[in-house]
């Protein structure tokens, strides 16, 4: 019998794999993709709790849709940054981006 715990454990595993990816990735694009994994894990968590223990599940699912909108805005900006960084510098490893031009 599948319970909410199964979904929470799945979301936790997804989050931890994403965390591992963020810590070990050496290219900026892979960092962005791993962050997307972590965001999706959080989404799955929110959906599970909205369906199992929220007073108004429909509101919880509505929040999830809005969260996906915010995540889409984030990934658009992040990928624009990846393109801009690759264009303006010769640094290839993500650790090299240690300075900001203000």
């Amino acid at each position, binding site marked *: 019998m599948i319970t909410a*715990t199964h979904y929470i454990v799945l979301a936790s595993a997804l989050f931890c794999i994403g965390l591992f990816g963020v810590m070990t990735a050496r290219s900026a694009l892979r960092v962005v993709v791993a962050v997307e994994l972590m965001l999706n894990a959080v989404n799955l968590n929110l959906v599970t709790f909205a369906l199992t223990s929220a007073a108004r599940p429909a509101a919880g699912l*509505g929040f999830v849709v809005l969260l996906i909108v915010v995540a889409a805005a984030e990934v658009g900006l992040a990928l624009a940054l990846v393109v801009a960084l690759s264009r303006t510098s010769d640094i290839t490893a993500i650790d090299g981006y240690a300075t900001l031009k203000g």
Partner: protein
Amino acid sequence: MSARDALFYLYGALTLAGAVGIVRASRLVHAVVWLFATMVALAGIYLTLGSELLAGVQLFVYGGAVTVLALFALVLARPAPEVPAHLASISPWVAGVAATALLGALTVAAAGADGLAVAAIAAPDTAAIASEIFGRYVVLFEVAGLLLTVALVGSIVVARKDDAS
């Protein structure tokens, strides 16, 4: 084991396999393809929860838009030579131990909670979700639209070729 349980394990295994593929793929384009597989499998997970709307949104936004955007970024960004693994600032072993420890702690915490059977849930239909978004939380919806517009303009400004310099 019901059909829903079997589907949960199938999509769950696919999701985790895709996530591992993203992290471990040797080439970036393979990582993006794994991202697509992961997002499609996650849409299946939402289906096992009985939420067709979220499954569709997941498929369109993540499976479609975000994956294609990542592919475009991969094409537009200059190809960078791979950095040897030993030059990474955090060793994969340290990162693996840290992520595994966090997973263990989260699993123990989740196992302590009383498990609510998912089969008993009646997921709200699309009309109920829509009446929440466009009713009580319509201001939130408007702000989200504004945020998308600002992010779109900001992305263009950031990624634009600077002709002046």
